[in-house]
């Protein structure tokens, strides 16, 4: 028998989509039965009480969680979010309900062995409830008590060679798309760059030294499957410099219908016969493609590598060979001043291990600037807005590049530095008045 009645939540058990309520209930039952005789280190009815609390929220339309207190593991400034319930008498099982962020492996690849080990720790020392995964990318252990935090950390590091992820004014746990591990579009090894930088910057990840949070995300190509451009302070997006490789025979096979466009992504409806003119050439944003007789031609100098043609005809078109990545900076959620998309600050940079150039000429100068100039709780994007793209260019020590802007300024309010203007700013008014009487 369930500890709390949950008539509202129960209504979420029906319907085809996997029900988190059913899952929580099976977990509550399992803990209650405890067939394996685990010595639960936190209340056995933690899941029951979570269900009860949630039912109350459903009834009232309001959350019952209070602000996090400052809890964590020794020496780290992140990785744990403290959480307390505002009705601890009614729901003692979740009176303390902290989360821990466990740094996920690149590409979110797992073995059952590894994940079972994590489950073992979490069943013993926590609620057994997780988010797979948090929005930033971490494995989220959802709900434990303060005394368990160090224990879990100890077991993770000692027994699993596994560290916590980020929170607070730190580098947050970097995340990547699946990339070269499975994807033919990947222009660099997202997993490797993600792993390398994560390790290089462990100190920044665990010890708050920044004005606010900072996120890295790694997309292998402009399709942006990890959405880096919209939600990373620094987005690394694969691209190439040379020509799209064309297999003309395969082009014909698409035209002839032997190959299905877009790998069959549109199979659920009859869109008619594939029409390369309409579906590929006509949709190319730069208009840089033509069919010349039976030959598909791309004016690669005009291509902006939007991926569309390649997405539609992956067996005929392939990314170029001179590969690397573009770096965009400053994306973030809307608070305070409206959402920001990443801005292109490095059009192209090579992405070969050990990635020294990326670290030394981009990441570190930007961080130095932000740590110097950023106000408390000011994201990089906000600082960029405040001090201008010119400043970013100065910080990077590069030449201004029209690629960094969508268009030049339309207001002519150009600021000049005194030394750019012959004669400087100081002038003798009386000399002027000789020529211009009052």
């Amino acid at each position, binding site marked *: 028998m369930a500890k709390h009645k949950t008539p509202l939540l129960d209504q979420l058990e029906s319907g085809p989509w996997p029900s988190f309520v059913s899952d929580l*209930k099976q977990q509550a039952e399992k803990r209650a039965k405890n067939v394996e005789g685990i010595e639960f280190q936190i209340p056995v009815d933690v899941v029951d009480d979570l269900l009860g609390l949630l039912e109350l929220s459903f009834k009232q339309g309001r959350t019952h969680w209070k602000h996090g207190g400052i809890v964590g593991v020794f020496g780290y400034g992140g990785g744990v979010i403290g959480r307390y319930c505002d009705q601890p008498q009614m729901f003692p099982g979740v009176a303390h309900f902290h989360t821990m962020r466990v740094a996920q492996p690149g590409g979110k690849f797992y073995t059952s062995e590894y994940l079972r080990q994590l489950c073992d720790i979490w069943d013993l020392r926590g609620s057994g409830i997780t988010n797979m995964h948090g929005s930033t990318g971490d494995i989220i252990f959802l709900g434990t008590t303060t005394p368990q935090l160090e224990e879990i950390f100890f077991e993770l590091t000692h027994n699993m060679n596994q560290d916590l992820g980020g929170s607070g004014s730190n580098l947050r746990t970097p995340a990547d798309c699946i990339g070269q591990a499975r994807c033919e579009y990947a222009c660099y090894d997202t997993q490797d760059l993600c792993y390398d930088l994560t390790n290089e910057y462990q100190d920044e990840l665990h010890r708050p030294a920044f004005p606010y949070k900072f996120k890295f995300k790694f997309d292998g190509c402009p399709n942006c499957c990890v959405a880096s451009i919209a939600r990373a302070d620094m987005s690394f997006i694969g691209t190439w410099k040379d020509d799209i490789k064309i297999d003309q025979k395969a082009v014909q096979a698409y035209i002839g219908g032997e190959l299905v466009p877009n790998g*069959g992504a549109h199979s659920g409806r009859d869109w008619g016969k594939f029409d390369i003119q309409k579906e590929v050439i006509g949709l190319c944003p730069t208009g840089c493609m033509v069919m010349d007789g039976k030959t598909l031609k791309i004016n690669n100098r005009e291509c902006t590598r939007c991926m569309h043609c390649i997405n539609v005809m992956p067996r005929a078109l392939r990314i170029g060979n001179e590969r690397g990545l573009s770096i965009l900076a400053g994306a973030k959620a809307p608070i305070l001043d409206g959402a920001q998309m990443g801005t292109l600050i490095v059009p192209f940079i090579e992405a070969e291990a050990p990635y020294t150039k990326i670290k030394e000429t981009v990441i570190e100068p930007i961080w130095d600037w932000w740590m110097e100039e950023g106000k408390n709780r000011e994201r990089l994007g906000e600082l960029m807005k405040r001090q201008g793209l010119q400043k970013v260019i100065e910080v990077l020590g590069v030449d201004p590049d029209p690629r960094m802007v969508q268009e030049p300024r339309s207001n002519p309010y150009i600021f000049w530095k005194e030394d750019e203007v012959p004669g400087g700013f100081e002038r003798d008014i009386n000399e002027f008045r000789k020529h211009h009487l009052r």
Partner: protein
Amino acid sequence: MAFISSGYNPEKPMENRITDIGPRKYDEFYPPVIAKNKGKWLYHEYLQPGVLVHVAESGDELYTVRCGGARLMTTTHIREICEIADKHCGGYFRFTTRNNIEFLLDSKAKVKPLLDDLAGRKFKGGSFKFPVGGTGAGVSNIVHTQGWIHCHTPATDASGPVKAVMDELFADFQQHRMPAHVRVSLACCLNMCGAVHCSDIAILGYHRKPPMLDHEYLDKMCEIPLAIAACPTAAIKPAKVEVKGEKLNSVAVNNERCMYCGNCYTMCPSMPLADTEGDGIVIMAGGKVSNRISAPKFSKVVVAFIPNEAPRWPQTAKVIKGMIEAYAKDAQKYERLGDWAERIGWERFFEKCELDFTHHLIDDFRDPAYYTWRQTTQFKF
């Protein structure tokens, strides 16, 4: 319940301490076919919605079976995933960036047995445990945030509305009949923990009442200057108040300037916003992240408010379903929802989606609002 020590000694926290080791290395978890063919994939194809094959230069094939699921999952559920992976694919699987589960198989022969196995697994309540789908031109899983399960600032729940909406969109999770990807996201408050601001369809929790002031405790529980500084609209001022005859330092909020962001509450627990009738959902639409054809773009507010109708948020589900149907019917192949809206014009979008255009949808936040106004005679009757 006896305390079981991990070996950690609270007296000597630095003893034996291991730190800064980062995550496990990615390649420890690659299935052999990936380890071998990494960076050498040639192309991919969909065998059916939810089932992908990737073919490598070597000729090797990798089959992926993608299943939806609640990202809020228990160890019971995870152990079941592990068990399936062990049974069908050597224990290898992964999660996608939208919280779907992917089983990774190295031969076509293994696909059908896995699909059959998955189809049979249901929760007690009747829902699927592992519905296969979420690929191609369909509706994938909803990325979402914590909601009433864990966070202190939500204006709506996360897992609840997601379940309700995904039930409504379920057929399209398992089909490829959309003109392009449809990506739905949910964030339970303005902090927007996710790429909700750039989603085809976004569900956003929103407060509509200024904070309450717990004057009696405010000065004790909060740093008043921090609370004041947190407000993006400068709506908060210091104030002296009298409570039960006692003069207290507190704050006053100019309700007219407040846009209910909850930033003050994040700084000061004595300024709660949550309200049964005030809180609810904003629907946004037309954002995207990919650079395909058009540049990434932000979602736009298309419904200013829907109340929190727990447990099944029927209006929210209906509005979303309605938009998706209108889009499916009218958009061109490869055209994302936002590109469709821009092509037909937002005036048509509201008409085709049968949504009301209210004054709340007109931007009035700071200077850039002005760029959203119509500054051409080009419009449709």
